[in-house]
Structures are given as structure tokens and as C-alpha cells.
């Protein structure tokens, strides 16, 4: 049978090889190397910080945060779970993973929220951005691990870059969605009173989209956690490395221990961020209040808390 492949053979793989190896890597390697500097800085800072904190203090802070935003049973789970991680000897790796996750999510937010805002305000931008996000979400991460290693080398920072590529889409999508879903008559009212685009964004769109944006942040966080093991393939440390080492040595116990650590961390982070997002349900929390909430872990009785009960 004749097939198109008999007539024409497209050397697609060669083209990509030529593009990446022949042009991208030699010309832009230094630029990409420089781009990972801020990531390395934030990551090292956080890694040192979390590893320097006494285990009991970190656990206490997390348990309090869980209590405030996710309820008492979650606080108890946090205490027991973190104690378990410590007892199976994986505390330092867990803290490294936590630092990696926070770094990834931070950069995802810094890139993704503005991108989502821009996409929400222009249909053109959204049309271009949407397929890009689709590709980022569907392309198997192993595909971009190779060029990442070529461009950035191996280590923690390249692992985080791979994580960012994988975890970025939800925050962009949900920021876009949240802002587009702000009621049309509110936008009209803001315009009728002579708001500038910036005033509308800060006064109205971001606060009202906050809940959706927080849901996106939660999704991004979960995706980042799921990349931990893959990122470890290109030199990122932490719990992912424990799992990979177990895999390499057919050490079932070691791999399981690392896996359990990841699961416990995932549950705790998920519930806390979900609780944070749901607090916006009452539609009363301004941007400032959210950041204050993030900073103030110990719950002084702020009006937002009371409204949450009422709502």
C-alpha cells in the first residue's frame, strides 16, 4: 500500500536537533544560564531557611495554619504526618522539596497571574496563549527535559524550570477565567464613574477574581508537587531524589518512604491553600487582606473571619 511516507520523508527530528543543538544552545546558552540566577537565589534562600528552622517550629507553624484555614482535624493530621516524616528520617529532604515547590509556585504566580490578566483583557492575546498552554499541559515532560539540560545544565534550578513549565497553565487559565467572569454590570459601573483600566483591575477585577485565582494557585501547587520525582531525574534533590534512588536500586522501602513523604506534604499544602481560597467565598477579602492573611498566621479576630462564619 502506498502511504504519504513513501512519497516524502520529513526529517522532523533532524530539524529539531539542528534547531536546538545547532542554533539555540550555542547562541543562547549564556542567556538561559543567566535566566536561572533568580531561581537559584530564591531556591537556595528558601532551602537554607527551611533546613535551618527547627523541625518542631516548622511543624507548629504548619499545624497552626492548617488549624486556621482547614480545621482542627487537619491540624492534627499535620502534626502526626510531619512527625512521621521526621521519624522515617526524611525531614531534610522534605524541607528541600518544600523549598522547591514554593519557589516553583512563586515563579508560576509571578509569571502566570499577569499573563492571565493580560489574556483576560484581550481576546487576541488569549487566542495566542491558549494553544501554548494546551501544549504545555499535554506535552510529556520528558520531551522538554533534554533541551532543558542542554540549555541550563543539570541541578536544582533546571528541575524547577521544568516544574514551572508543567505547573504554569492552571494559574494562567484560572486568572483569565476569574477576571473574565467578573459581572459585566460591575465593569460597566466602574467605567461609568470614569475608572482607568488600572483602577478597575486593582479595585474590582482582581479582588473579585481572587477566589478563582486562589483555586488556580492550588492547582499549580499540586502540579508542582507531582513534578518532584521527574525533576529529580535532572538533578533536583529532595524527596524526588529519594524515590529515584529507590527506583534505581530496586529499594522498594526507600521509594515508598519518599512517596509517602510527598503525599503527606501534598495533602497538607492542598488543604491549607484550599482553605485560603475558600475564605474569599464571602467576596469580602481584598487583595491586601489576602496577603495579610498569608502573613498573619496566628488568627487574630479579623472581620473576614466573622464574615466567613456568616456566609
Amino acid at each position: 500500500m502506498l502511504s504519504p511516507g513513501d512519497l516524502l520523508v520529513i526529517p522532523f527530528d533532524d530539524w529539531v536537533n539542528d534547531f536546538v543543538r545547532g542554533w539555540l544552545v550555542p547562541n543562547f546558552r549564556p542567556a538561559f544560564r543567566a535566566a536561572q540566577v533568580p531561581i537559584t537565589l530564591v531556591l537556595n534562600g528558601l532551602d537554607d531557611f527551611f533546613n535551618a528552622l527547627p523541625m518542631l517550629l516548622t511543624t507548629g507553624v504548619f499545624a497552626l495554619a492548617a488549624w486556621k484555614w482547614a480545621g482542627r482535624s487537619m491540624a492534627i493530621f499535620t502534626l502526626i504526618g510531619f512527625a512521621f516524616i521526621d521519624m522515617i528520617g526524611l525531614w531534610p529532604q522534605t524541607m528541600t522539596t518544600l523549598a522547591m515547590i514554593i519557589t516553583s509556585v512563586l515563579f508560576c504566580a509571578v509569571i502566570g497571574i499577569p499573563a492571565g490578566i493580560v489574556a483576560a483583557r484581550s481576546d487576541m492575546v488569549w487566542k495566542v496563549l491558549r494553544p501554548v498552554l494546551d501544549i504545555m499541559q499535554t506535552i510529556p515532560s520528558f520531551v522538554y527535559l533534554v533541551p532543558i539540560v542542554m540549555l541550563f545544565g543539570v541541578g536544582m534550578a533546571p528541575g524547577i524550570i521544568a516544574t514551572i513549565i508543567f505547573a504554569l497553565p492552571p494559574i494562567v487559565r484560572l486568572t483569565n477565567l476569574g477576571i473574565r467572569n467578573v459581572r459585566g454590570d460591575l465593569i460597566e459601573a466602574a467605567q461609568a464613574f470614569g475608572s482607568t483600566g488600572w483602577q478597575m483591575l486593582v479595585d474590582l477585577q482582581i479582588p473579585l477574581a481572587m477566589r478563582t485565582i486562589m483555586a488556580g494557585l492550588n492547582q499549580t501547587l499540586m502540579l508542582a508537587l507531582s513534578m518532584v520525582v521527574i525533576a529529580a531525574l535532572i538533578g533536583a534533590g529532595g524527596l524526588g531524589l529519594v524515590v529515584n534512588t529507590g527506583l534505581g536500586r530496586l529499594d522498594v522501602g526507600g521509594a515508598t518512604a519518599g512517596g509517602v513523604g510527598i503525599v503527606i506534604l501534598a495533602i497538607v499544602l492542598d488543604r491549607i491553600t484550599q482553605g485560603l481560597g475558600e475564605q474569599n467565598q464571602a467576596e469580602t477579602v481584598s487583595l491586601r487582606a489576602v496577603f495579610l492573611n498569608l502573613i498573619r498566621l496566628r488568627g487574630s479576630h479579623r472581620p473576614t473571619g466573622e464574615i466567613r462564619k456568616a456566609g
Partner: protein
Amino acid sequence: MPIKLSVRNVFKVFGRKTNAALELLAQGRSKEEILKATGATVGVQDASFDVGEGEIFVVMGLSGSGKSTLVRMLNGLIAPTSGSILIDGDDVASCGRRRLREIRREKIAMVFQHFALFPHWTVAENAAYGLRVKGVQAPERRERALKALDQVGLRAWAESLPSELSGGMQQRVGLARGLATGPEVLLMDEPFGALDPLIRREMQDELLALQKTLRKTIIFITHDLNEALLLGDKIAIMKDGRFVQVGTAQEIVSNPADDYVAAFVADIDRGRVFTAEDVSNDPAAVRLGTDNAEDAMRTMEDLNRNALYVVDDKDNIAGVVTYQDLAAATLDEEAPNPVLEEALITEYPTAAADDQLNALYGAASGGLPIAVTDERDRLVGVVEPEAVFAQLSGDEEEAGEEAPDAATPTETADSPGKERAHA
């Protein structure tokens, strides 16, 4: 009255082929034909009107008539396809974005059908929104917002969230937000449409009471003709994007421009549209001391009336005399031509010139003519009971000899829609 807002030949066509649509419109094609030919929807066609300072101009129409589009063009939320919209000489239709923003901040505020309050802010913060946009500092902003809330009677709720308020209260906040910046023009897009009838009535009265002191230029959109007639100094009736008739409440009710308007007018409460002044006649009072019973009876016969008011030498009303009583008195042979005092009835109904007819039912049913008095209690007119009922039933010929201006057709320069409607 100086003109505040002047709209000239404004068209709005939604869609791509706006020029083709405008041409077809000029050829007199209908909305449906144009939609078929060009795919463009005609929102508003050839609207022209002037609104004087401190006037309430009501645009009444059913949904899809283009009234919401029209009001949104007045503050540039929707840009007109052609035409000019002058507010104090600034053309909203053609000025730049920056100027438009300034006009919105300084001159023109809007109240929305579904309130459009910001759910994440308190009532006071909502009321202060226009000031916040203008960059007014927080303490002054708050003070002025509280003042505006005071005007609508919601100061006590300043720290509540909009969601804790009832619909009527929410719309008061919407009104306070509109008033706080001290705009000269207030656009109200079916502001009471989402409220239940009792609250709507209350809000209408309140708006009228507020307007007495504020004297804003108000463009009020509604689909309820009763509301339009109650509030409007001038009313425009819109259908398919064009003005069918522009005029005062009385003009529209007593002289509908076409069947469309007539159908609306048919079931409105005429008692709320017309006032004592509209049906009152020349007082033709007789004077105590100078006129005697025979003079009074002759006047009644001439004017075909059953009773006349009697004033004293200081022009104060002394009472009313009826033909029947006078006739009885003259039959008394001892005093063939008695003085008026003998038959004087001193219990008589009175009304102010701007009293609505539905407040006169009781007085009219007593059978005596109603004395229309001015603020110094002087007699300025007389309302015959029959005239009240004739006007209410829509039978104008009987509504008194010099019946209301309203009953005479008016073709004034400021109602251009009317000629078109006839054409």
C-alpha cells in the same frame, strides 16, 4: 431653562456594515430589512432631544426598543455610530478617551438596574467609589460618601455589606454612589425595575422629593409608563430605536401620537397624570357686597354652572353659592333680591393647583365645585366635579371650557420625534 444635554441625530448600529446600514436607514428601510441585508442591528435611529437643567427626561420603551443603548451613549459606554451628544458643549460622541473619563468623573453619574454595587466593599466604600476614582483622599471621601448616604437615609448602614441590604436599600446605595461625586447629570437605567411594586412606589416618591432640593438633570429610563408619567417633566416614547413621541405627561396621555402610544396610554392611571390645574376653569367669582343673588344667577346661567365661589372685598374666599339655594332664596317674597350671604355655604372643598386628580375624588363627589387656591389661599380656579370624572374617563370635550393645554395638540420644536412619527 438653560439646555444641559443636547442630543442631535444620534444613530447606533451594531455590527460590521454600519455605513451600509445607515444608508439603508436613510432610504427608509425597516430594522428587519436592514438586519437581513447587512447583518447589522439598528439600536437607535435618529434620536434628537434637549434636556434642560434640573429637568427629568424619561425615556420609556419596551425591551429591545433601544432605550438602554441610548442612555449608554450619553456617557460614552457605547459609542454612537453617528450624531452628536453635547453636555455643556462637550461632545461625548467625539471627544477623546481622556476627556470622556473627565466628563464621567465630574459631570455625569449613572444608576443601574441591577444596582451594580461592588460586593467586596461596604456601603460607605461603595458610595465613595466615584470619589476614589477621582483620587479624593480617604477622609474627605468618607465624609462625602456619608453625606450622600444621609440623603438617601442609609447612614446607619454605612459599614454593612451590600449583600446584607434589601433590594430597595441597595438601589439607594446605588443612588448615593451616583450623588456623592456631585454630578450635574444623572443617568438612571431602569433603576426601580428590579424592585417590587411597593418599594418601587416609595423610591419614586423619594426620588421626586430629593429632586426638589437637588435639581439634577436626570435622564431616566423605564419600561413602565405610569412611572414615566409620574416622574417625567418630559417623556420620550421609544419603539424600534426611534422616538415615537416626545412631550409632557399630559400631552402624551391626552394626545397620543399614534396607535402604539395610544395602546399604552389606554390603561394608565389618568388620575395620577392630570392635576387640578389641568381641569380647572376660570373662577368667575362673585363678590360679596357688590354682587347680589340675581347677578350670581345670571353668571351661572351664562357659564352653564350650578355654583359659584364668592370672595370678599379682600379677595379671600367667603364661601360658595349654588343656583338651587339662590333660586329658593329669591322665591322669598319679602326680600326679592337677597344679598349673597343668605345662601352662602362656607364649607367648601379646596385643592392646590398641582394636586393630582386622584386626590380629588372625595371632594368631587360632594357635588360642589372645588376651589383651586394658590399658596396664599387666593382663588385661582374652579374645578367642576364633572370635569374631574370626564378627564379620568378620557373624555376631554367635557373637561371644562378652557381645558388644559394638554388637550390641545402641540407641535413644538423640541419634539422632533412627533413629526417623524406622523410622517
